[in-house]
């Protein structure tokens, strides 16, 4: 397949309602189950090892009008929480058997219980992911939490997660993440070969299929990209930071690049690329996965990392990708991103790295003001 054909396939998959994706897969896999996970990270390996389809629950984007959920959540609550709930009210996740939430923020925590109350027939599980990265007890705790999730699958769906199956799933996801890392490396080397919208579509499509169904076309993409005929333009290289949960509209990502940037690093769909290296191959698979969460996780606003300053991971990302600046793109009302912005901004200023803030909402549809801000920022940098 050509790069363009792969991207068009991804665009079509991403445009489908989540429930339709689940139903299609289940039709091809009679008796199969689908479980969707709310951002940022969830152990897709455990879902996969139970033989189920892991999916990303990422809100309704621009396609869903809120008719029920905004009576449940106030005006000062982020859009992804409301539109994810709305998907349930409008039957757009029919076909998805279960949902996994975690403690990424206070809204996500409440959303989990409210989902359960409003859709009692669905499997809803809440994971407490550790906010302590240094205690000797933390890996053991998380290992227990992952086993608890596996036990819940067994109890609700009659699907066992054996150690052997989980070990195999870890291996499969290691391969998937290696392909994704390869794509990110390619973009750093030659951002003109793969736009951020294209990379995002590929990544998002990978969250809507079992990895074994994804590895083929991802491999094709990695192989075909270096030969893609493109011409590098005079643009500023930026890191996009803060859009790790609510999904920015594609139009925003397009405008960012059209206005003069090459996005060379980002935290989009971070949970699906969570580990900075392969999860270890030997030993208890639950323990390995837990240890990787504690010691190999990408820096994230949703996870306390006691071993380094909030800005350290971002500055490292800027250096590693050869970026000239950072564009912060927090979703409106996203407290983890908005709080981290302050410490990150201070760190960037100490390091002499320019930055710009562009707030967004998933339903945003006009981007002219954003285009203007970005163009001004880019010009101020290029002609400095």
């Amino acid at each position, binding site marked *: 397949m050509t790069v363009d054909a792969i991207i068009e396939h991804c665009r079509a998959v991403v445009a489908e309602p989540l429930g339709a994706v689940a139903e299609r897969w289940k039709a091809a896999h009679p008796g199969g189950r689908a479980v969707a996970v709310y951002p940022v990270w969830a152990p897709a390996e455990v879902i996969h090892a139970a033989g189920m389809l892991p999916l990303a629950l990422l809100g309704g984007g621009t396609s869903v009008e809120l008719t029920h959920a905004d009576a*449940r959540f*106030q005006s000062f609550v982020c859009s992804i929480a409301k539109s994810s709930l709305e998907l349930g009210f409008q039957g757009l996740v029919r076909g998805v058997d279960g949902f996994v939430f975690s403690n990424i923020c*206070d*809204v996500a925590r409440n*959303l989990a219980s409210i989902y359960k109350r409003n859709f009692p027939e669905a499997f809803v599980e*809440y994971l407490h992911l550790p906010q302590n990265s240094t205690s000797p007890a933390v890996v*053991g705790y998380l290992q227990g939490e992952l086993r608890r999730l596996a036990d819940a699958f067994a109890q609700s769906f009659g699907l066992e997660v054996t150690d052997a199956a989980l070990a195999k799933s870890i291996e499969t996801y290691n391969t998937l993440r290696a392909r994704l890392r390869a794509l990110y490396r390619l973009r750093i080397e030659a951002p003109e070969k793969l736009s951020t919208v294209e990379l995002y579509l590929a990544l998002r499509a990978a969250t809507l299929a079992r990895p074994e169904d994804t590895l083929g076309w991802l491999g094709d993409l990695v192989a075909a990209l270096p030969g893609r005929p493109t011409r590098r333009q005079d643009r500023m290289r930026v890191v996009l930071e803060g859009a790790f949960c609510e999904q920015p509209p594609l139009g925003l990502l397009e405008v960012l690049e059209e206005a003069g940037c090459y996005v060379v690093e980002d935290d989009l769909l971070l949970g699906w690329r969570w580990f900075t290296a392969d999860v270890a191959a030997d030993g208890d698979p639950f323990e390995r996965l837990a240890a990787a969460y504690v010691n190999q996780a990408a820096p994230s606003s949703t996870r*306390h990392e006691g071993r380094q300053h909030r800005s350290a991971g971002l500055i490292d990302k800027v250096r590693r990708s050869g970026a000239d600046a950072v564009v912060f793109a927090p979703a409106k009302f996203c407290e983890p991103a*908005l709080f981290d912005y302050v410490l990150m901004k201070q760190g960037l200023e100490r390091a002499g790295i320019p930055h710009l803030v562009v707030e967004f909402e998933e339903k945003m549809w006009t981007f002219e003001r954003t285009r203007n801000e970005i163009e001004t920022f880019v010009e101020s940098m290029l002609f400095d």
Partner: protein
Amino acid sequence: MAEAVTERQYQGRVHQRSRQLMSAWMSELARAEAEGVPTGALMISGNCVELLRACHVLPMFPEVTALQNAIRKKSLPLILKAEQAGYSSDNCAYVKADIGLFLDGGMGPGKPIPFPTITVCNYVGCNVYVKWFEHLADVSGSRLFVLDTPFARTPEPTPGDVRYVVSQLEELITLCESVSGKKFDIDYLREILGHAARAEAGYARCKHLTRHRPAPFDAYFDSINMMGPINVLRGTREAAEFFDEAVAEFEELVTQGLGPLSEERFRTVVEGPPPYPYYKSFRNLFTRWGAVAVQSTYSTVGGIWEWGFRHDPQRPLESIAEQMLRENLTNRSITARYGQIKRYVEEWEADALVIHSIKSCRLFSAGQGDMRDYFTRELGVPTLLVESDLEDPRYYAEAQLRNRIDAFFEALEHKKLVGAGH
């Protein structure tokens, strides 16, 4: 129109004694640096204050500083200072007021609010706590210890949850020993937990007294007098004695048939924190209707004692862990809170639920529309939802609040009259 309801302007021993105790603690804090006493910043929710006391680390509470600035109408300039520094208008205003205090020079070396020696984020429920304490540690340069408390997501904490928290408490003890230079003594902790359990029993007794008609105090607005001693001073002999006095005073009021208002017309359960910048104004909106809170969820952020849980000196670290994991409002799910409120409505015989939704605290607020839906549609409990903020005065719209509150109680009064056959 019925006779106007007024406050009895009652300022009893509970109010006075609470102020004395809290002032003494603040003075101790202001002297700590000069006297070489290490301090530890803690969160109110489900805290492990007893452990810090046992380790000779004086606890300090950024939330208390923030609310005191709000109630004294000093919060807005601090919030604006923080916003100038990059904090969003959508960030929790408690945090902004606290950081603003630092930026304004009101916190730090040689100040009445010193920098903490250690910053102990007892992460119970609220994710913003983690951010807050990361920022506090950043500005103060103090050592940050995040005590990760797994959220209550199973009916009871798992044995793994308890082990995990106990392990971290042991690590905290080691950290405290390193800053205090004093060896931890488990028997001293047991003694402190004994005082704590006595205070908890007293607070629980006070809350049970509001089942009487009239309730002897307002379990929302007056509970603040007890929340300081129970959450900040728990584990001291003085706090235990304070609650002995409180029980005696409230029992006396029950005997005399006296409540906080000239007449108790409506009994409410209140959900959510109060608007501290307009505490009195907000209270007046309910007083004029003779509405008295007989229970509140905010009074249980630090611990839910009225259903029997007590710290156990025989199981010191385990019982601290259990309190952090289970026996406080903030580490429970919002739907578990529905259950808590339902019990309050039924057992305290409330006429209505009042939800005060605040923008700052999404842990409390996010989803309260669903809560209203549950109570009105599924349980038939008259429910009022109003919005403002606990710290930021810009979100308090008196006229709008008054309209909604008046309309609600008018309807409730009408319902009562019709129900009584008039």
